[in-house]
């Protein structure tokens, strides 16, 4: 059964996942091309100086990439399910309704983590090529909320899409958008150090949000 659900989710998402991950990798590559270019013209130590003392955030180009990936994966996974109320088909399957939803959600989380892990590995690898560990460390603190935002956006988009009543869908969207702003506060590199674990906990807490709107759908709130 889990194989079948993964298969269905895979058919829906595969091209988007592939294209977005490739675009993400290109964006990561672009970040370091810019670094490389600056260094070629102005020498490495001057760039390090900007990064260390002038708040030059070389990793800025990553900012919205995980958010977009999370958002798009949620949309391509769940919009086909509410089109013509197809999610009813899932609820008719000989499997517990919540279990089926959690499998779909689990698939989404798994592919997002894979995609994000790939981006992060390449990002860390290239960062370490150019910069000292201290700089890489503070960059990681700064990009962590952006990757968490990708997951949070995935969970909350699923919630919004699965709600069948427009009035509530807009309400969920407003609440979600205000919440997502937590992950994009402007600040210095490394400024998110005290907040990251709290954002991680909140992201984990909202991971099952979608079951709320799906429950409402199942009980006739459509």
């Amino acid at each position, binding site marked *: 059964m889990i194989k079948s659900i993964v298969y269905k989710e895979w058919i829906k998402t595969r091209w988007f996942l592939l294209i977005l991950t490739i675009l993400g990798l290109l964006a990561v590559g672009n970040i370091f091309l810019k670094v490389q270019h600056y260094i070629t013209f102005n020498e490495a130590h001057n760039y390090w100086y900007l990064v260390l003392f002038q708040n030059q955030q070389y990793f800025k180009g990553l900012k919205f990439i995980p958010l977009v990936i999370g958002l798009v994966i949620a949309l391509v996974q769940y919009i086909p399910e509410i089109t013509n109320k197809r999610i009813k088909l899932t609820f008719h399957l000989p499997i517990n309704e919540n279990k089926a939803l959690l499998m779909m959600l689990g698939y989404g989380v798994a592919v997002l983590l894979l995609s994000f892990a790939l981006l992060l590995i390449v990002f860390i690898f290239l960062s370490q090529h150019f910069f000292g560990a201290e700089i890489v460390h503070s960059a990681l603190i700064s990009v962590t909320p952006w990757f968490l935002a990708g997951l949070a956006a995935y969970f909350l988009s699923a919630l919004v899409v699965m709600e069948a009543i427009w009035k509530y869908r807009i309400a969920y969207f407003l609440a979600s958008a205000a*919440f997502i702003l937590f992950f994009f506060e402007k600040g210095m590199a490394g400024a998110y150090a005290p907040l990251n674990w709290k954002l991680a906990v909140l992201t984990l807490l909202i991971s099952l*949000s979608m079951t709320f709107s799906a429950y409402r759908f199942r009980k006739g709130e459509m």
Partner: protein
Amino acid sequence: MNKISRYILVFITILAASVALPELYWLAFEKPINAPFTMYSSQEHDFFMIKREQGETVRVDRKGNEYTRDEFELKLPMFFSRQLALNGTLPDSLNGVALDLHEISRARSSFRFRARDMQTPTPELYPLFESESGRANLEMPTDFFRITHRMEFLDAATNTIDERKSQMFTTVLNNRDFNYPAKMIAGIPTTRKSCDEGYFVVDSKDMMYHVKMIKSEPYVRKIEVPDGLTFRHISCVDFSDKKYYSYLISEDDGLYILTQDVYEFIRWPFDALQPETDELRIYGNLFHYTVITRRPGYQKAMALDTEYNKVDEFTETWKEREETKQGKIASFIFPAEMRLSVPTTNFIDFYGERTKKFNWVFLNLFLVLVQIIIIRRTKLKMQKNILDLVIVGITGIYGFIAVNFFQNKFFD
């Protein structure tokens, strides 16, 4: 699971609303609050200040007498010496000292410390300048150092450790009984300074060292720190009078200076500093230091003579944001406000603050009533909504939005 999901969503909505709604409110209605700019006149031996009142700049003394711009500048020759010289009205001598424009500007210093200077993320990599290069201008070194289990120099171009240089400095540090790793490294990491004085490094046992590079050789001096004195912050300064290296804030919130060459720690007669929240400004001149500590709605100005003895002080208060009309209206709406960034730190976190006046209780109670009506009208069971009512009662407008965004409709 669905009910828990709902309460989690209600919770994050309350969090999000408690950030977003006050932010929007203040974006729309906030008015600037100008703190007075206070100066100690070495001529009048009294405090003078520039304030903004109803959009007008006013210049007053401590008693409230108003002055024109020209009158005012004449009262403060040490602050406006260049303007007075231009007007030809700079006095020839003051307090028995002949005034020379060059001497005045050499003795002039300006320093600002904000709580966020201490509470800030710092990647611990620093450039160590050549202090006696024989060149007119300082040059940015091509490597950066860290002091972890040893002192390491990391070459930026190759991102590799310069072993020879690292060992050379580490050896000297070892010879001076340095305890790794460094707890604090303070210096002025910029080429835009008059000269380089290297770094002040506090080791893991609170010993302080002065570390410089002179003609490519390490210069490490262990500084004698009085017993029991430890520091939580060091701000190095580059003043033209070369009297001291830095301002230091001790663990017991004392303000010290570290004098040049003899490395003497001098505590200023100063007891009002709260380094976690305060902003500190120090304006020095030939005769006095004007020391200002400021927090919202309050500032204390102190005048010290050149021997660092207190000669006068003056406390001022003004309406902080909460006490303005907009603040009072806000206190009727928001039970608390949360922000992710605050002026006192560069770290991003949840900074919540309860509204001090309890005016919001009225709105909370009103919203509880509205919620009861909503529950009645949507034919939901009252017993199952007690928690919702409690949430609205405590969190007011935020909870009201949250519980209605996520309908409490369940079927058993």
